[in-house]
């Protein structure tokens, strides 16, 4: 994707914007009440139901719009949680030395080695299956990745001469972090967090597909995919539509991340 440059960024913004727009609209307007089961079983697209209905007779477009909301909340929430935890842990590890650094690095590697889905199943087993549990699980898994990256970036910055200069001129560590470290690492972190957002959306869909995401009747795209699976031959739109939306959002997020990377200082070629 490298080289798409600003065109890629623009395309990404459009794709993400579409999903974001749908999610925002769903807050104020929906074609049908999501609990309305009067549509008839698996009505084909067209007519009163633009994309048809599901087995229970609920409007598919309505479900998809709510799904956009859930996907964005899950993705955004996970990135927020994973970002905050990850950056804090990464800063701590970045400043640590010797055995403490080794121990933190090993702990992060161990956490990364743990599959997100397995971690999510543990979280769901302890808590209930819910959007919150999904965000918690995905965010925790993500925080390890973010922390490792932050640690490496921090180490690299700390090795620079101007840090030594700042130290000798009497700057406190918090000040060094605020004035030297964070400004130097945020572009890379931002790109990474954008990429993580796409992964988080996919992870939430996987969890919902497995029945570990937000419980019904929440219309997560993963749940819609699962429900449509048995009827894929008779009512293919039910399976295709949430899949297409997932692709749109994830590709969009990746294009944005890519564009941001190209814009990042010191990265442009």
């Amino acid at each position, binding site marked *: 994707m490298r080289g798409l440059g600003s065109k890629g960024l623009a395309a990404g913004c459009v794709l993400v914007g579409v999903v974001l727009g749908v999610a925002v609209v769903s807050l104020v307007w929906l074609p049908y009440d999501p*609990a*309305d*089961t009067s549509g008839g*079983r*698996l009505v084909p697209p067209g007519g009163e139901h633009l994309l048809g209905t599901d*087995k*229970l*007779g609920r409007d598919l477009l309505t479900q998809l719009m709510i799904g956009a909301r859930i996907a964005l909340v899950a993705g955004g929430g996970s990135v927020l949680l994973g970002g905050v935890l990850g950056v804090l842990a990464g800063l701590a590890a970045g400043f640590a030395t010797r055995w403490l650094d080794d121990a933190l690095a090993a702990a992060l590697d161990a956490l990364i080695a743990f599959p997100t889905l397995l971690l999510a199943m543990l979280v769901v087993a302890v808590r*209930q*299956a819910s959007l919150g549990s999904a965000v918690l699980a995905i965010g925790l898994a993500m925080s390890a990745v973010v922390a490792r990256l932050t640690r490496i970036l921090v180490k690299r910055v700390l090795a620079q001469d101007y840090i030594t200069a700042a130290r000798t001129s009497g700057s406190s560590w918090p000040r060094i972090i605020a004035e030297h470290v964070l400004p130097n690492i945020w572009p890379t972190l931002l790109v990474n967090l954008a990429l993580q957002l796409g992964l988080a959306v996919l992870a939430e869909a996987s969890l919902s597909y497995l*029945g*570990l995401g937000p*419980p*019904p*009747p929440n219309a997560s795209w993963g*749940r819609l995919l699962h*429900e449509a*699976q*048995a*009827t*894929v*031959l*008779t*009512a293919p739109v039910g399976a295709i539509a949430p899949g297409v939306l997932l692709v749109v959002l994830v590709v969009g997020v990746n294009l944005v991340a890519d564009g941001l990377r190209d814009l990042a200082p010191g990265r442009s070629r």
Partner: protein
Amino acid sequence: MTRKFAGVAVALALALAACGSDPAAAPQEGAGSGAATIEIGSLYEPQNLDNTAGGGQGVTETFNGNVYEGLYRLTDAGQVENLLAESEKVSDDGLTYTFELRQGVTFHSGKALTAADVKHSIERVSAEDSQSARKSQLQVIKSVTAPDEHTVVVKLSSRSISLLYNLSYVWIVNADVKDLTTGEDGTGPYKLGSWKRGSTLSLEPFPGYWGPKPANGGVVFHYFTEATALNNALITGAVDVVTSEQSPDALAQFTGNPDYKVAEGHSTTKLLLAFNDRKAPFDKPLVRKAVSSAIDDAKLLESIWAGHGSLIGSMVPPTDPWYEDLTKVNPYDVELAKKQLAEAGYAGGFRFTLDTPNYDPHPTVATFVKSELAKVGITVDINVITADEWYSKVFKKRDFAATLQEHVNDRDVVWYGNPDFYWGYDNKQVTGWVEQAERAKTAEEQTELLKKANRQIAEDAASDWLYLYPQIVVASSKLSGYPVNGLNSQFYAYGIKKG
């Protein structure tokens, strides 16, 4: 991940009328094809291989009649016939049964069947730690003795008209084998070949079998966790038959295709919205009736099964002798439901948590129930749980308000006579009728009493019986001799022929 709850699902079965297990088969094309291995596709892998240790529906499907045999056998048509018991004598007071065992029967290990094995086998089902669903029905047995090698005497504390029927679920096992969860030692026509967990379980013909040899050269059960994958396996020829289709939409690819046969038999699997009858608000029959009337069962059935299956209105399926149509007792009527709620003191509705097993169709059904009950002011919080959680939280601890569950057994209305069952329905009259029915001298008397019990539980809306599943078997048209009423749990494989 387990489907259908193990403990309740256990012995399932059938009692179905209709076809026997040997529909007119295509003429055999020589010994070669008759000895072919049959590939069976199923969604129900055993949890373990012991039906008294939570093996679940899967082990019944795989082993019942194939690897293990009982003193009696329940045929695909629902008849009880003699198997390892050659004959029985009943004392005049109905309290002493003397069974003569078939001679020349050996276990797969080579040991000869003796009366001591039968005594052990009955006692392990009724033992303290047994998880068998038939356990409570065998409590009537006071003692089992083995006066000689081939005679077993069972003494009862009261008459039990269902004793022979209940014994058809008791596997006769080798008394010397302590752990049957990973191995087996039965007397059936097949012995266990290999079990690759999560994948396949193969059965090989047992050369020392006392009866007729299986019509095939062995069977392999292929386990799937997902119906689409299972159907694909049938299309690609990886399996020859699917024991139980769980989605009507998959049928479209098989109906009208000459390469496949679709058989719709009867099932005994009921989908229940089971209330915790001990706890408010569901301790009030009026509240339960209101909930039953607020849910449009016909629409739900159409949503899930698209024209297959049927409504029952109570616990008894049409294939049980004491069936009657009770769908009118708690009709779908939203206004009636509102009135009943108001009368019960819940005019403003209420809120409850619905514990919902995480496998299909429960989450979809829960969604429907939530949307229906919202119309009468009741808010449903759906709590999705695994089958294991269901067993510990709902079945064992009774820590629930209401739950969804499939109850697969036939003749299981009697559980409403047990106030200790997980749903906690406690009506002295019903308990009395169920007890008397068991002690009945004639089948007519038993039928009359259980009909009364069935009507009463419907009047009290002890649970909400949402619908009765269809039983749909799809097989390659080259296959014959498979059970069509296969009633979910048992699936006799010895008559199946290919070609």
